[in-house]
């Protein structure tokens, strides 16, 4: 079984570009209904299928995402 991972999204830093969404192989991420203080929809986790592959974090232009993966 794939290892379990998790992401932490700094929502105030997110600019809502959506580049991370399609980079995730497990459709873990989607855009929020709410907006942050700058008025951007931000990336949110919508399921617990994250494997900690870091794809989303690598392509995020604003370094918004931190990734964890079980050892």
């Amino acid at each position, binding site marked *: 079984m794939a290892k379990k991972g998790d992401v932490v999204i700094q929502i105030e830093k997110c*600019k*809502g*570009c*959506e*580049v991370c969404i399609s980079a995730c192989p497990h459709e873990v991420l989607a855009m929020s209904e709410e907006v942050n203080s700058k008025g*951007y929809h931000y990336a949110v986790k919508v399921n*617990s299928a994250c494997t900690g592959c870091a794809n989303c974090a*690598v392509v995020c232009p604003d370094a918004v995402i*931190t990734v*964890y993966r079980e050892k």
Partner: protein
Amino acid sequence: MIMAENLKNPENLVYEKTKVLTDRVLHYCPGCGHGTAHRMLAEAIDDLGIQEETIGVAPVGCSVLAYYYFDVDMTEAAHGRAPAVATGIKRVMPEKYVFTYQGDGDLAAIGTAETIHACNRGENILIVFVNNGIYGMTGGQMAPTTLENMKSTTSPRGRDVKTMGAPLKITELIAQLPGTYYVARHSVHTPANARKTKRALKKALEYQKEEKGTCFIEVVSNCPSNWKMTPVESNKWMEENMFPFYPLGDIKVPQ
């Protein structure tokens, strides 16, 4: 749930923003490749453990404020002159790792002479060239790199090669010069591409230590704001239109 919470502790950390980037919020537009290109270069510097020995030269263009974001010694050059400034720095401090970070307007228009001559002299520097086919900062004017038929504010009906010349593949031109050692073209719009870019930048910095000559890494990138597309659309447009003309991969590799 408890499992998931427990995951978020330091020993499970696999990816966070490198310390070679400061905590400042980037001024770039949403989805702009400059941010990812900065981070790949910063991670390459981090991986090699050379943060204290690296000096960067920022350009004029959207990345004019790069010195706010890289936590290394940096200076700012007049438009297009970064390779000349980097030449001076490297010659005075040959033990340092010296890079320039430049857009296509900066490097391939106003700075063409400095670019070509630094490369021809084989200056022992890394040139990072972010090609988005447009003058991003000033509002989307045509650049030498603008594709045929591509619209910009100064080619509103599309670039007509008869009157405006053909788009300039300056990277292929540079690769002809004996002074260049390693020349490659990459992108940062997908995880796999971004990782390749980082590997190329790392290799280039390693060659600099070995005093091999100029290393030149182009990053074909987007400008969602001036291309007037969403970031995701711009990346798709880039794949469909920029990559056929500016193919990714190695252009000159050490023999």
